């Protein structure tokens, strides 16, 4: 029997079990166990006075780059970055090289994930080679271990294929995650279409490029009765469409990323390629609407779209630069800012970052009930730090938040009772 771990005196925020109070959490053999009356002398005790104890954070949208682009990130380094950011599980998108469109690639990723610092849930491709033409083998991939399906980064153009993908996936109980972008409209754009793009002379991407695709996905979800999940919502218009769809009973869930509720397209000034991502940073009004949607439940989850790139892809002309930023190590502090600003409550934050991702993906986690796997994140809401390039655990450093003063940090991450990160 392993050593008993006691997380003492922390504020336990466990909305799945309607808990938000000072309590001790006991862990034995990798699972939450009933707290006893007296702590045995050989127990490993963490005094967590002033800290929050929450179910392990889950990021349902990351890019781990392995196989194929190991110079940017690997399953191992991505998992380490996740642990450092307080995450105990991540879902990794299939746009690797080769693309994860078959059981053999899925198995390869899961082999790399053995012993990693976070649970890895591979997401399989919707179409073979994400080419948007033929369905990939969902049954085989499901058996190999994919948690969901997406053609992230290469959105499905053909509406018929998307419909068939949703229907076919439902037979294997697999969720389709949509990167919602109408490519014929976003065509060659490299930032949000606005006065900023006009002044900088960059080709703009209008909000409508996202709205059109989001509307298609919810229309298809309504048609088929099958759930769909909208990835990285960036606009107020998408929020309105999702809210409307939910009011009609459509089975749609959605996520946004910290950069969309923190930054606007003003961050692109100076041709900052670390402010270039797909979808692009939007206007202040979009940012405000996303914050409200996180509060009122229109948006279900916060995911980072962690997208590591090296300077080879980022230290170039803006219109040639790759899309995406890393996010695993800044997601929690940026979300805690929403809590401090009164936009969301502490328990809502836990829902957005742990409970909902587990529920949407249908994976364990998001709960600290007795018997649950002991994936636990301990947060110091007061800890202040300046986010520097040197402290980044991810293999890449493409973040617009470098140099920012942040408050709140994961100080202890436990994966099945095993410590994967500890800066207590």
């Amino acid at each position, binding site marked *: 029997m392993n050593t008993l771990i006691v997380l003492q005196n922390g504020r336990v925020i466990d909305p799945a079990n309607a808990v938000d109070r000072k309590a001790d959490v006991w862990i034995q053999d990798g699972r939450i166990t009933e707290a006893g009356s007296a702590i045995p002398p050989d127990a490993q005790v963490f005094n967590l006075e002033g800290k929050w104890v929450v179910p392990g954070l889950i990021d349902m949208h990351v890019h781990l780059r392995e196989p194929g682009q190991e110079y940017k990130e690997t399953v191992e380094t991505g998992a380490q970055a996740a642990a450092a950011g307080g995450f105990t599980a991540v879902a990794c998108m299939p746009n690797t090289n080769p693309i994860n469109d078959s059981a053999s690639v899925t198995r390869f990723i899961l082999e790399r994930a053995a012993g990693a610092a976070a649970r890895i849930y591979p997401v399989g491709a919707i179409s073979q080679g994400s080419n948007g033409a033929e369905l990939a083998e969902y049954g085989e991939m499901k058996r190999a271990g994919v948690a969901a399906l997406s053609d992230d980064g290469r959105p499905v153009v053909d509406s018929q294929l998307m419909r068939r993908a949703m229907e076919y996936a439902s037979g294997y109980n697999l969720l389709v995650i949509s990167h919602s972008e109408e490519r014929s409209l976003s065509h060659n754009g490299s930032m949000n279409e606005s006065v900023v793009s006009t002044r*900088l002379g960059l080709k703009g991407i209008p909000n409508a490029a996202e709205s059109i695709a989001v509307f298609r996905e919810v229309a298809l979800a309504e048609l088929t009765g099958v759930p769909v999940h909208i990835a990285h919502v960036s606009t107020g218009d998408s929020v309105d469409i999702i809210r409307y769809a939910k009011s009609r009973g459509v089975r749609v869930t959605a996520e946004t990323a910290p950069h969309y509720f923190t930054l606007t397209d003003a961050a692109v000034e100076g041709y900052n390629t670390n402010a270039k991502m797909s979808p692009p940073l939007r206007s202040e009004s979009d940012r405000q609407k996303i914050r409200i949607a996180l509060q009122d439940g229109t948006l279900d989850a916060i995911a980072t779209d962690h997208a590591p790139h090296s300077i080879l892809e980022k*230290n170039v002309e803006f219109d040639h630069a790759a899309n995406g930023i890393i996010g695993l190590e800044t997601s929690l502090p940026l979300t805690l800012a929403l809590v401090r600003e009164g936009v969301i409550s502490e328990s809502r934050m836990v829902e957005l970052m742990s409970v909902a991702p587990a529920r949407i993906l249908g994976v364990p986690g998001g709960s600290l009930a007795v018997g649950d796997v002991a994936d636990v994140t301990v947060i110091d809401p007061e800890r202040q730090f300046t986010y520097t390039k040197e402290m980044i655990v991810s293999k890449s450093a493409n973040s617009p938040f470098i140099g920012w003063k942040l408050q709140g940090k994961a100080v202890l991450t436990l994966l099945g009772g095993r410590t994967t990160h500890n800066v207590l």
Partner: protein
Amino acid sequence: MTTGKSEYFFKHRHIFGIEQFSVEDIAHILSTARSFKEISERPIKKVPTLRGKTIINFFFESSTRTRLSFEIAAKRMSADTFNIAASTSSTTKGETLIDTARNLEAMRPDIIIIRHASSGAPLLLSRHVNASIINAGDGAHEHPSQGLLDMMTIIEHKGQMSGLIIAIVGDIAHSRVARSDIIGFTKLGATVRVAGPATFMPSGIEQLGAHVCSSVEEAVDGADVVMALRIQHERLKDPLIPSLREYSTFFGVNRKLLERAKADVLIMHPGPINRGVELSPDVADGPGSVIMDQVTNGVAVRMALLYLVLGGEKNSDG
């Protein structure tokens, strides 16, 4: 020594766009350009001001006029100039802009003049080299020397910019000249109207100070200056306009249209002209046309920029 008045100091080491300039900066550049203009009228068109300075013309897009204008400007000030075109540079061999820049830097140029299809490329270059960077046109961002020569030409003929009504007609969305002009003209107190098919109007252009007109007639009405922009043939495929013929019918600047403008209206064009498309031949060559003055002033403005980025009189030889 301090005098009662604060001493003006041109503080820009790099020229990225008109946006970076104060009204005082623009006035200083133009007055420097005016003093240099006379050099081009001399029998021996050369002064030793930039002797021993190395200037590289780094052009990633084809250009005849601007490249030649910068080269003549540099040579009239005795600088050594070198031209690199995209087709002859290592960028076609897969070298990145920054690697190419570092290699150039290793040869210790004083100024790199860059034209590039990507907006922001001059700024990126400036972060990796010690040389002064002058933007000779980047994507749809800015073309500051063109903006300055346009201001110089207008002031030469009208005495000042303030209070003038200036109509810019054409593809505002894809034009770096339009951006530099709108920013510069409005800084100096002119009213700028823009007109063109709606597909040529970029998002939020009003916030840059331009008045968007619903027709070219409205834009030209009572105008002191009418500038026509070049229509790029590739815009037909984008698709932004159906045909050059239709464009010319509704937005071409011709004699009849100009009856609405002031009698002494100036006709300008950044070149090269598609005769009969954005500008009718009689207008291009007509009495109000100052298109060739623009070209002449281009050399003077570029001499001024080369001189000023290297520190002006503090650093000169003559």
